[in-house]
């Protein structure tokens, strides 16, 4: 009566399907669909969210993300070049920066900029500048590491061949090394944009007017409305996915493209 390996695998698969189906049946039978409908996914409440959730919240989330990315990328490029510098103190500064801002929660940076600096120095940045710096300085640490890895992943022979053809250092970097490095860093860079999109939710910590609400703050205000239930947060969540899922798909597209380049070299 001993079972073969194949029979055992078949039985195991059968049991896994059975468990899955039982759980689904239990959910369908036990869940209170009426309450879920009213309090979690209430079309009437969702309708109330419009158009603000798009024209204010989604728009601001995109603006905050873009601001953070611009600062993060610019600072990240500088840090990556510092980390690859032949001048040791530059490398130390870049390493310190990266370790620090990768190590502390973004939340802490927001609190420091939003509340710490005004308390300590009696001086407050403009709202958008605060967001831009807070998101940017953290993103820069991650972006710098991706860029450095990308630049180092281009074989040294590429640079040597370019120089051997009479190109200057700058010309060889701009024409030969950086285009190849960019292809390598596009997937991690896309991931960084996804992380930034989500980190922009931390803006809710800062005091602000309705016009500056982003998705999380907008959803949070929404649930305090009478009878709104969870629905405003669910709506906000869906809006995040509308941004991040396409970015994820894009990242995977880049990845397969890079693989092709790598295989062909």
């Amino acid at each position, binding site marked *: 009566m001993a079972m073969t390996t194949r029979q055992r695998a078949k039985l195991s698969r059968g049991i896994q399907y059975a468990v899955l189906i039982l759980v689904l049946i239990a959910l369908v039978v036990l869940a209170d669909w009426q309450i879920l409908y009213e309090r979690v996914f209430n079309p009437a409440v969702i309708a109330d969210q419009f158009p603000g959730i798009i024209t204010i919240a989604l728009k601001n989330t995109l603006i905050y993300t873009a601001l953070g990315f611009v600062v993060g990328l610019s600072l990240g490029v500088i840090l990556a070049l510092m980390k690859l510098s032949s001048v040791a103190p530059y490398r130390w500064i870049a390493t310190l920066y990266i370790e620090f801002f990768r190590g502390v929660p973004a939340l802490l940076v927001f609190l420091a900029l939003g509340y710490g600096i005004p308390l300590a120095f009696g001086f407050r940045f403009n709202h958008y500048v605060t967001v831009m710096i807070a998101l940017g300085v953290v993103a820069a640490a991650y972006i710098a590491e991706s860029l450095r890895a990308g630049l180092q992943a281009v074989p040294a022979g*590429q640079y040597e*061949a370019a120089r051997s*053809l009479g190109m200057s250092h700058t010309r060889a970097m701009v024409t030969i090394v950086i285009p190849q490095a960019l292809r390598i860093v596009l997937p991690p860079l896309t991931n960084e944009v996804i992380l930034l999109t989500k980190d922009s939710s931390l803006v809710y910590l800062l005091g602000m007017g309705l016009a500056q609400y982003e998705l999380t703050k907008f959803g949070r205000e929404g649930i305090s409305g009478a009878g709104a239930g969870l629905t405003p947060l669910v709506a906000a969540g869906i809006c995040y996915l509308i941004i991040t899922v396409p970015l994820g798909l894009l990242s995977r597209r880049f990845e397969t493209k890079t693989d092709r*380049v790598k295989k062909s070299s």
Partner: protein
Amino acid sequence: MSTSATDNTPATTGSQAPAVSVRGLNKAYGDLEVLRGIDLTVHPGEVVCLIGPSGSGKSTLLRCLNLLEEPQSGDITVSGFDVTDPDIDVDAMRRNVGMVFQQFNLFPHLTVLENCTVSQVKVLKRSKTEAERTAMTNLERVGLAEKAQQRPGQLSGGQQQRVAIARALSMNPDLMLFDEPTSALDPETVGDVLAIMRTLANEGMTMLVVTHEMSFARDVADRVVFMDGGVVVEEGPAREVIGSPKHERTRSFLSRVLNPTKVDAPE
């Protein structure tokens, strides 16, 4: 260094300035001395092969000539440029010196044609049309004109190396350096690359070739230089050095390379 053959240069070319002149070249990585007092002369139109066991410093010597490696001391002149002068215009010197690498080092993000034009346009400031014309001429020379629009990754190793030769030739160099150009190739594609190098040699190109292809060295080189342990052990006309080496170290190296299956008693 250790033989009197060092100054055995052909009298016929003695009146011209040498294409390459190396005097007392030293190069070390930390405590490891890779080159110890190298003297070498290559005359215009000459083909010189550098042979020797791995780690003998052949590639390092070649890379010192166009400053991919920084020599510690010694004098190097390459096609009229004083390479060891700290104020040398490195880029100008390299424009005159073509380099072919063991790993080809084609630019994978550019087409075959772009590989051959990019430096002409960016460095020599040739027009795109002129650069493409030069590139196509050289791609025809290596028999790959029909691959102009493909990416390097779509070519075989031998084809990539031929493109690398065309890329170097497109800069109209006075001198071509080859760093083990066939060592990374499948055996069946080695012949195509060697055939092109042979044609180049016959056309009068000045060539300095680091190679393990003894039959190529014997048939094509005007002179063969045998290096071991960072010094030039023996040099002379190709047939003499390979056919009847004077030095014991050369003999033992050649017998190992030419009869790889024969087990030698250690010297």
